[in-house]
């Protein structure tokens, strides 16, 4: 329909050959270059610019319109608000400004004219001057720019073309050119190579990383094995795996063959009550079990425990294909028909949402993780997650369990470490599942996004138990769609390290940080070094990063030793009544001990095993296990939100219909209705909590200043100074709601002169408003739950009202 327009002259050469441009500007592209107010990345060139453009702000951003200049570079669509501060030339480059869209995350470009809308593709041409430019993004954002009457018409048209021509729909090969555009310049490579990794995160890349985690969780009886150091035993497993101490490497080697893809049972986490969480792939059945092997296999499964529960994740969980289908439907529902800008009819919204089954899938994962958490809480057993391939839902469930049970995983570094451990290192096939290259359509499935949704559900139910915030989850969600990060661009550690061997060693040292060899940095323009996604300061401005952590999160006591000796809850059911060596299967919410659960116990080779244990696996402790799960569902209502006094009580999610909700901030960001009514407003925006947090920090700083000044000034009034000192002391002890170290929230400047982190704050607003014209009436527009209405003030009269305001009301 769009390609077929006859009268149009085909491809207009408005964008000169890109290479040529890059060459022509090459000499000028120094770091921190400022082009018409746009802070360019090294090597970035501006292809087109349009002035007097207004960006429609979504509800999260406070709604309304923001005036500024729109740029199209060969890497991103950038928008610079007119009143934004002059960027600091010496600041490190940030890939995406607060209002920018990476070209690779654009899915469709739609131009809205006076009477029609048109999907703009690289080959299409416009027969009208666009008044509005709408970018539909893969991450479900819908970014809308409005051209002013004063925007030169050519600029409006040309920038639309530029974007349409350069955004490059995903297909094999385009990723690479995008990566080059973003990171390919010499300066950028140099810059990336010199970047230090965040040492707060456990990257799980070296032996010591794993040992640190073993120590942190107090897991004993386990060791880190380097038997897979060259990926010879299992190509998809990481170099280092945690296995029972009792199994020697030589013995271990023989067990790989018994599992699909060699993915043997590996330790993931120890619950403070002493249970261990493991994960593995399905058994290879057509293999002869030697006696010695059987002993080792049993040891692998049981660790040091007496009982073992295998949690089967293939049975009643959604498959990756289900997840993909649900996500596709959800996208369609939330974005509507992109080419016509028509949204799904509103009246069947809930039913249609239900029919996507996305929420069902999220509920299912949460439910399974909650069951596993309860089992672990029961104490003294191994719980093994089993999935045929051990690369999708095992990642989801094992990491969800840890988010529920381990407060450390609810902090920002802890969560990132968790993703490193259970996804990146464990070999979740990010590359195939994301399908960046459009080479693996059948494999495509947003399993990781489902996981983020589940974490969001937990966060939404227990916000104060998380240090990370919804904004962080949203940022991570969006980054998945920007194919720049090594985290998401490989399927397993082997691929990742191969890639980095080809390149410099910039991001994948095996044992801690390794010096970058200078010769590596400037060679081979084809493959730029890719940063990990956790390098947030590379991606986002500090304003956005400041919102990644909760201002009121309880400080997580990191010194807490989880040694597995935590007293079992008095009411917890005794589970150790089962015979030693019992293996149970948890599938579809019920326990059983089928005889063929462990292939070697079934038939021929298992005789020796049976002799070694007095009894065959009995179903005696089944009721006990059932009780644990049942106790959860029964006690669920009576559980108070676990208080800080017992950080190890799992955060069990409520799964009743009304409790599993749609992640509005993410999926409905682009909902057209939400943008229906908007008025121009200044961009200053604050959440009351942010503001409050900032104020408290300010007061603290003032207090510190006042007390030190006071100390310097006088020695007479000792007593009166003491309370202040106490106060500060208290804050360090976490008595106050803020943990003292909050580097992100307040720029560390000299306290008295520090300015609010984000533009003017509402604190100053009411007087201002009053001073100006108290009778000026202004507007507020509704938006989803966490709307921030306080950020809107009087409309700027000079800005034209959006044209869709009147008619939309009248219709």
């Amino acid at each position, binding site marked *: 329909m769009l390609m077929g327009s006859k009268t149009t002259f085909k491809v207009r050469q408005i964008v000169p050959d890109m290479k040529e441009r890059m060459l022509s500007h090459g000499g000028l592209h120094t770091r921190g270059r400022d082009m018409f107010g746009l802070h360019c990345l090294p090597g970035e060139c501006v292809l087109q610019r349009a002035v007097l453009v207004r960006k429609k702000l979504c509800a999260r951003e406070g709604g309304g319109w923001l005036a500024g200049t729109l740029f199209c570079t060969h890497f991103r669509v950038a928008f610079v608000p007119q009143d934004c501060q002059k960027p600091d030339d010496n600041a490190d480059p940030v890939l995406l400004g607060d209002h920018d869209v990476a070209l690779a995350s654009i899915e469709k470009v739609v131009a809205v004219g006076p009477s029609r809308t048109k999907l703009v593709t690289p080959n299409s041409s416009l027969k009208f001057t666009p008044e509005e430019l709408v970018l539909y993004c893969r991450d479900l954002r819908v970014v809308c720019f409005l051209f002013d009457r004063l925007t030169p018409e050519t600029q409006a048209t040309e920038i639309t073309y530029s974007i349409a021509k350069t955004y490059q729909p995903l297909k094999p090969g385009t990723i690479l050119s995008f990566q080059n555009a973003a990171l390919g310049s010499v300066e950028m490579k140099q810059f990336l190579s010199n970047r230090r990794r965040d040492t707060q995160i456990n990257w799980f890349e070296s032996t010591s990383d794993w040992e640190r985690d073993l120590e942190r969780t107090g897991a004993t009886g386990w060791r880190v094995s380097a038997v897979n150091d060259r990926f010879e035993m299992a190509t998809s497993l990481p170099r280092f795996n945690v296995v029972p101490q009792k199994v020697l490497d030589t013995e271990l080697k023989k067990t790989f063959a018994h599992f699909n893809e060699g993915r043997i049972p590996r330790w993931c986490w120890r619950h403070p009550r002493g249970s261990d969480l493991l994960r593995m792939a399905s058994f290879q059945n057509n293999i002869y079990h030697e006696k010695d092997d059987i002993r080792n296999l049993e040891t692998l499964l049981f660790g040091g425990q007496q009982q073992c529960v295998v949690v089967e994740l293939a049975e009643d969980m959604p498959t990756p294909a289900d997840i993909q289908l649900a996500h596709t439907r959800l996208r369609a529902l939330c974005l509507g028909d992109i080419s016509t800008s028509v949204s799904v009819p509103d009246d069947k919204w809930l039913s249609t949402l239900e029919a996507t089954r996305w929420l069902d899938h999220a509920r299912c994962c949460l439910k399974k993780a909650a069951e596993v958490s309860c089992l672990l809480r029961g104490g003294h057993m191994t719980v093994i997650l089993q999935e045929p391939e051990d690369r999708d839902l095992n990642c989801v469930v094992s990491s969800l369990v840890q988010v529920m049970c381990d407060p450390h995983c609810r902090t920002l570094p802890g969560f990132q470490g968790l993703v490193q451990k259970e996804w990146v290192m464990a070999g979740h096939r990010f590359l195939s599942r994301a399908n960046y290259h459009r080479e693996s359509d059948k494999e495509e499935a947003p399993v990781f996004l489902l996981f983020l949704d589940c974490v969001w559900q937990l966060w939404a139910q227990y916000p104060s138990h998380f240090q990370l915030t919804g904004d962080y989850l949203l940022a991570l969600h969006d980054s998945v769609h920007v194919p720049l990060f090594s985290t998401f661009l490989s399927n397993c550690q082997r691929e990742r390290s191969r890639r980095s061997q080809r390149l410099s060693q910039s991001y994948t040292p095996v044992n801690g940080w390794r010096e970058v060899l200078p010769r590596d940095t400037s060679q081979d323009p084809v493959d730029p070094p890719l940063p990990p996604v956790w390098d947030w300061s590379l991606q986002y401005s500090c304003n956005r990063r400041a919102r990644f952590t909760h201002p009121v999160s309880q400080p997580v006591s990191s010194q807490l030793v989880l040694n597995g000796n935590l007293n079992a809850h008095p009411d917890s059911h005794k589970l150790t009544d089962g015979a030693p060596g019992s293996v149970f299967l948890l599938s579809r919410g019920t326990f059983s001990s089928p005889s063929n659960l462990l292939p070697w116990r079934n038939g021929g080779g298992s005789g020796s095993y049976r002799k070694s244990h007095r009894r065959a696996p009995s179903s005696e402790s089944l009721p006990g296990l059932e009780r644990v799960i049942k106790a959860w569902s029964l006690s669920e209502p009576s559980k108070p939100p676990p208080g800080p006094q017992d950080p190890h009580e799992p955060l069990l999610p409520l799964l009743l219909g009304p409790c599993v909700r749609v992640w509005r901030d993410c999926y409905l960001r682009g909902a057209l209705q939400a943008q229906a009514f908007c008025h121009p407003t200044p961009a200053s925006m604050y959440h009351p909590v942010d503001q409050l947090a900032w104020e408290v920090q300010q007061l603290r700083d003032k207090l510190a200043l006042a007390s030190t000044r006071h100390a310097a000034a006088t020695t007479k009034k000792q007593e009166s100074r003491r309370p202040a000192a106490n106060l500060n002391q208290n804050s360090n002890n976490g008595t106050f709601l803020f943990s003292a170290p909050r580097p992100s929230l307040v720029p560390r400047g000299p306290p008295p002169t520090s300015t609010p982190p984000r533009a003017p704050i509402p604190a100053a607003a009411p007087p201002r408003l009053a001073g100006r014209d108290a009778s000026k009436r*202004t507007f507020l527009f509704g938006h989803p*739950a966490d709307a921030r209405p306080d950020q809107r003030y009087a409309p700027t009269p000079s800005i034209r009202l959006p044209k869709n305001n*009147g008619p939309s009301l009248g219709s």
Partner: protein
Amino acid sequence: MEKQSSAGGYGADGLAHPVVPSRKPSRPLGSNSGSRQPSFEALDSPTESHVEWCKQLIAATISSQISGQISGSVPPDPVSRDFKVGRRTDLRVSRRPDLMALRDGNKQAQMEEAPRVPGESIKAIAKDVMYICPFTGAVSGTLTVTDYKLYFKSLERDPPFILDVNLGAISRLETIGVQSHGENTRGMEIVCKDMRNPRFAYKKEEQSKLEIFEMLTKHAFPLSNDLPLFAFLYKETFPEDGWKVYDPAVEYKRMGLPNESWTISKINSSYEVCDTYPALLVVPTSIKDDELRRVASFRAKHRIPVLSWIHPETQATIVRCSQPLVGPTDRRCKEDERYLQTIMDANAQSHKLTVFDARQSSMADTNKAKDGGYEIESFYPNVELNFLEIPNIHVMRESLRKLKEVVYPTIDEAHWLSSVDSTHWLEYIRLLLAGAVRIADKLESGKTSVVVHCSDGWDRTAQLTSLAMLMLDSYYRTLRGFQVLLEKEWVSFGHKFAARVGHGDENHANSERSPLFVQFIDCVWQMMRQFPAAFEFNELFLITILDHLYSCLFGTFLYNSEHERVGKEVPGETVSLWSYINSQSEDFTNPFYINYENHVLYPVASLRHLELWVSYYVRWNPRMRPQMPVHQSLKEMLVVRAELQRRVEDLQREASSSRSISSSSDHASSPSHTGTPLHTTV
């Protein structure tokens, strides 16, 4: 906790609103908070016990299951505080000896006794009654029936299980078969208006048990049994007098009325012109009384167009009335036409007038055939007629009935969303909000006066005008202002509360009943969700209002019109809900309220951005645990801030008095904090 309460005392209330426009009376809200005692000490005052009782009501079944951990040794974290206090109330009341005779006098019986409000008397007590809890299984205990409530307490569980139902909330009582609980057992189902149906089983042979059912029937429907409503027996006194909250003259004065175009007419002072209207009406100055009477005869139930709200700048007005009696023959009324013209002329900014007919256009036509109708545009020059297509009260009743089936007792997890969809409840909420947005926008952006009516002008009209006023006028978004709004648009203008709710009436099938007020409060909640900082009151306030819509404890929502209320001496004989609320206002305030003076709120009326009000409709389900009390930690943060602020000031004062430093620039910057819009009232 004490610290919190006292810190809240020096609330930044006055500071938070540097500018109070002349048309708005300054709110005396903060003034009493300083003098109030922290809730812990004051437990024994009747007010406090009442608050706790109300909290319990809200928590009701939830509390009994949640409080398991509370009785333990946990530090009094904010979550459990409410329930903990609730428990204390029970103990306190159960010490009363006067009912010992009725019992065997054993300790257990004492413990199972019901706490009572002043004026409440116990009518029947039955032991060994089994409550068939749909969530946690049957539990047996003692059932007490008073003239105000039904109270079930079981000590079988720890903590004791309590179920508390206001008799006023009972829609109907039914006997049910409960064979599974043994022979000679009778069952009773209590169908409530507040979305639950508790069931009880009790032994048949004992005389006292029969009594229970009869007593319950008698006192649940006092009007059908020639008994007074409990509000007339209730003897509590509050420091605040809620009947003084709304004074029409003061409220009209706030709006700048009377002015040259509008006057306050006393034509209805004896309710002769219209018996469902209040005594004071605002009408155009130029309309004479006899013209008014002729207009009245042309409007259904004589509900003439009167002013509800006037825009402080443009003078555009919201005018409410009932449908014109056009009839199938297209009758005209010159006075009515002139009247609308006068309304239009009173607003110099616009030469148009918009009539919003809330009904579906097809229903309006049906009404026309039945002697009702709508303004015919050709007879009314420059008048534009819009239908808002909102279905009638019967549709709403049916929708809520379906919703109840969806949420109680069990929730179908897999089909939750589609079953909510099938009730159409949210769709009607959307229609109402969208209609109100149109009205507000017409006034604000179009600067045009609007006339709103439905059939009789007391149901959908009240919903729409009050929602539009809530959007337009920030005063109504305060705690007091909202009370004024309800008193004005709903109570005084004759929303038929008695008929719609069916207070004390056993005829549960009466087609006059309909949850229109619930629907309106739901809309307010939706707005609150979209603008969390724009309302001074909180969710508890809305839930409390709805609970007392049914409870018959307060006189506020009794009877159909001001005329009836005056006749029954409601203000003299009963207590106002606002007495209770305003004596306890800190419980009902939103700590993050920011007074958006002169801001117009336009909620997004799209189903995607509406949500089912789970914490009201699904609150009886113990699995709907209240969400993490983030607001609680925010309140604590406010206290910390207040504390720090005070210390900074102290220190700075000290530092400056010591004169050891020359620069005072930092001092100058400190007062800027006082202008912050965040309340410290906790």
